[in-house]
């Protein structure tokens, strides 16, 4: 059975017939990251807050028409598309700033457990104790004046006890070199001839509670193509090529997002790259 699974994994990769846009291409509104602070919830402190910051890429001509958030203290996980275990437990959240929400999860989790109990659903771990940890979910849905809505979920783990100490921290992108130059999203202007390559070098530091092996970097651009969709193990070396451009692509914006796969994230960008189109 596992062998069949392996083949099923391999088959689509081997196939060259699948001609979809790569995930690195930002041609529509996209939520690039949902950054929690702190990364994990310690429910033993009932007063503790958690903030979620949404990093959204919008096409240059698009405007946000709706930004909606919800919090589910107990999620059904990926197999249930992160729906809430009880619809009644799902709480709508208001932004305290554009793309930023804050919530006191302990209270909401307790209320949800009470609702579960009254519905006859058990929520407990070993020996009748509450589970040591469980997954909560924050959903952010953005609708804009252009393109399809973007929706993302942050799967924040909540600890009833034995929360990681010290609290885990986000990774950090400590240095970025674009075309051999140290890049700065505000100060550096880059120009690339159509079909030319731009070398990208990243240095990423793991946050507390993560290792370099956990890290990987995702690459995004509004035009052109990356040689690799992701690089892993901290230091990332990649190439962006000004190719497969749209008719109106005169520039590209590049983003780099480092993740540890468990909530730790760091976003760098956008980096503006002018593209010198060759004559038609």
């Amino acid at each position, binding site marked *: *059975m*596992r*062998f*069949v*699974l*392996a*083949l*099923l*994994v*391999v*088959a*689509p*990769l*081997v*196939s*060259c*017939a*699948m001609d*979809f*846009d*790569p*995930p690195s291409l930002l041609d529509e509104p*996209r*939520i690039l*990251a*949902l950054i929690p602070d702190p990364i994990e919830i310690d429910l033993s402190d009932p007063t503790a807050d958690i903030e979620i910051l949404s990093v959204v890429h919008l096409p240059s001509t698009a405007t946000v028409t709706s930004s909606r958030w919800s919090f589910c203290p*107990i999620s*059904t*996980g*990926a*197999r249930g*598309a992160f729906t809430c*275990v009880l619809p009644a437990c799902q709480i709508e959240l208001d932004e305290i700033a554009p793309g930023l929400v804050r919530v006191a999860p302990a209270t909401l989790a307790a209320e949800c457990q009470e609702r*579960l109990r009254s519905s006859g*659903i*058990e*929520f*407990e*771990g070993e020996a009748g104790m509450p*589970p040591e940890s*469980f997954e909560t979910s924050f959903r952010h849905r953005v609708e804009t004046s252009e393109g*399809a809505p*973007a*929706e*993302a*979920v*942050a799967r924040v783990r909540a600890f009833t006890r034995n929360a990681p100490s010290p609290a885990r921290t986000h990774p950090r992108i400590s240095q970025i070199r674009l075309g051999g130059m140290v890049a700065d999203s505000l100060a550096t202007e880059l120009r690339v001839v159509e079909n030319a390559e731009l070398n990208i070098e990243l240095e990423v530091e793991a946050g507390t509670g993560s290792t370099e*092996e956990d890290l*990987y970097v*995702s690459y995004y651009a509004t035009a052109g193509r990356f040689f*690799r*969709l*992701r690089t*892993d193990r901290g230091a990332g070396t990649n190439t962006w090529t000004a190719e497969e451009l749209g008719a109106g692509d005169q520039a590209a914006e590049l983003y780099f*997002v480092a*993740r540890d*796969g*468990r*909530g730790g*994230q760091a976003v760098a960008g956008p980096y503006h790259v002018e593209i010198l189109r060759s004559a038609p």
Partner: protein
Amino acid sequence: MRAALAAIVSNLALLGASPALADEGTPTLFEPPELEQMVEPVLPEGALYPAPEIELVVELDVTRTGTVAAARLISGVGHPFDDAAVEAGTRLRFRPGRLSDGTAVPVRVTFRFRMFEPKAPEPPPPPPEPLTIRGEILEKGTRRPVPYATVMAREARLILAEAVTDERGRFELSFVSSATVTLELLPSGHEALSETVRGEPGAQLERRYYLARTGRSYETIVRGQLERREVNKEVIRADVVAKVPGTQGDTLKVIQNLPGVARPSFGGAPLVLRGSAPGDSRFFLEGQEIPGLYHFGGLRSTFNSAFLEAVEFVPGNFGPEFGRATGGIVDVRTRDPATDAFRGSVDLNLYDAGFSLEGPVSEKLSLGGSFHRSWIDAFLPAFIPDDSNLSFDTAPRFYDYQILATWRPEEKHKLKAIYYGSLDRLEALFDDPADDPSVRGTLSTRVMFHNLYLSSEAELSDRLKQSTSVQTGYQELRFALGPDFFFDLNVFRVALRSVWDFDAHEKLSVRLGTDTRLQFVNIALSSPTPPKEGDTPVPLSSVDILSVDENATVTEPSVFLSLVYRPIEALSLLPSVRLDYYSAIEKATVDPRFLAELRIHETSTLRAGLGLYQQPPQPDESAEPTGNPDLNAERSVQASLGMEQKLPWGLSLGLTGFYKWLDELVVRNPALATNPSAPLYTNEGTGRILGLEALLRFELDDVLSGWVAYTFQRSFRTDAPGAEERVFDFDQPHILTALGTWNIGAGWSLGVRWRLVSGNPYAPVTGSIYDAFTDVYVPVFARERSRLPSFHQLDVRLDKTWTFDTWKLNLYLDVQNAYNRENPEGVSYSYDYSQSQFISGLPVLPIFGIRGDW
């Protein structure tokens, strides 16, 4: 003893009255006595002649009447000749001597006997010496004996001698004839031969003839008529399927063309029998379970067809001899290595190469062995696009081997040993993480088993048979993906099967047996929970990971009893029961089963079956900490009703309707969402399967043979009480397979297979949500399942066989998907599931193969 003689009469003299006659002056002997009746001297047996020719002289007094009044020896040669001559002289008769006036008078004469020593009789001439012709008739190409063939020696229209070949194909003719005769060989099923033979009388000639086989009367699929303990059982003879398109001569791949078998996606390995999940059916070698029937992708079976005798395929309602399965069974029967001669084969095709060797070691012992190895790994990397992020450290490869020995210490006792194994291996390197960041690094799989099988079959009396087999072996299954995911399963297994068959009465047979196995299992994994039928796929990165390293000992004893009761000749009733115990869940099960067979006409048979079938949960479902040891065995109640009808023109039709109720199915525990300590699995799944199978077989004049199989079946599952019923993952309502082989002649044959199958169901994606923590999009599936477009495909195979006296050479071209149909086998999505397209199966694929048998 009588001697040859000659008599001489001479020295005549008148006797008695002669003076009177003399006185009268006129009497003179005018006419001497003349011998009228010769008498030979009678000699005693063995009388020794003093010389080759002897002469004896006697004096005879001949009376007036011609008799001899007295005889006296004048000259002799001694006893017994003298006495014999005197005695013979007295018995001579004369015409009397007469005077000149005509008066008869007594006369004394001297008489000579001349006797010759009789020559010894000439010995009879010796009969002409016969010509002897001894010989054997063998099948051309295979060197197999041709028994029961008539052999005659003919001279013009006269049959001089006639014989019939024995089991070894040998004959002997002995006849008297001129130097040239015509020898005629008239075997059944083989070409006749007429030959002029020259041989001098007394010569002994030795001949060997190779005759080409004609017709394919025994190349058929037959249904077992004796000892039927199933409603629907197909017995596939290994020699049936050599030329079925799309199988490359692999007997076990032909199963996929039979009624009740769903078509696997991508031509893959899992067998879905009568709507049951792949894991619900079991595969056996001589009654002992085989871990896997096929190599990866279903390209080739793990047991070489060279040593297969038959495959018994029972999609449902099987007998109590088999258990631990709620689906169907496939039992592979091996043949004994050749006892008449050393034989072998070599074959080579696009997928793999292999050989087999076998032959007698002694009168009672024969050995055989075979080996297959794929060589896909030699050319597959050439088909990987340069820009693919996938490369192979170890391209897909497999091998399998079999070593067999059969020893017959007595005529009714056979011992058999089989050592066999298989390995599949693949290592692929992902240079760049794909859409799912967990899919990175090296993907490696290794599936392997090595088994030793020993068996004894003995006919203890006319009414009692006993068979026992033991199998021990090691099975290993390893899967790893990158640094984060792996699944290792190691099983050491010992199994015992023993069956006693007793004919208690002419109307009652009893079968009693045990089927017990002991397994030592080690499971180590770091992965999401293994996928289950009905699951909708989600990215690996977005689900929790289990880490386990556990050992378990699983004991599964079983006993079974079945009766065959024939109250009348046309009716058989087969009640049976099977008892199982599963130590992993510490539960016992009792499975009563019943089968009835009614022969309503010589050409028509009805069969019906009803039974309970139970199987233990999979090891990862019942073993702590990943599984739930409190699970029950999964159950199915199977009912079926079938008929077989022989039709004219070489046709036969089989129809079977079936229904299966499923319950106690192991499903994911929905309570896990709210109760992390809840067991992963429960027995709350149910299901139902119904269908109708039809098999129309044809065999016309040994020229055209094949079958048309159609299956209508529906299979549904309900994953929890009150949950909505859904279709089974491999629910294929319509499955039509038509295949045939046309024996064109002159070694050419053409095979075609055409399949039309409903597409598999799948859960369509209606949207997705981005998991910002892992950078993957998690699909949102529709409640209702969709269905892939129908599959249809034509496979064509052209064979040319050259048959030489002692070997055969076969070249074939097997073209799969001849009209290059783009059959959807699945759905591929863009990274965010906003775009999709079907994944097509293999395009037109010509496979060239060569095979030699001797």
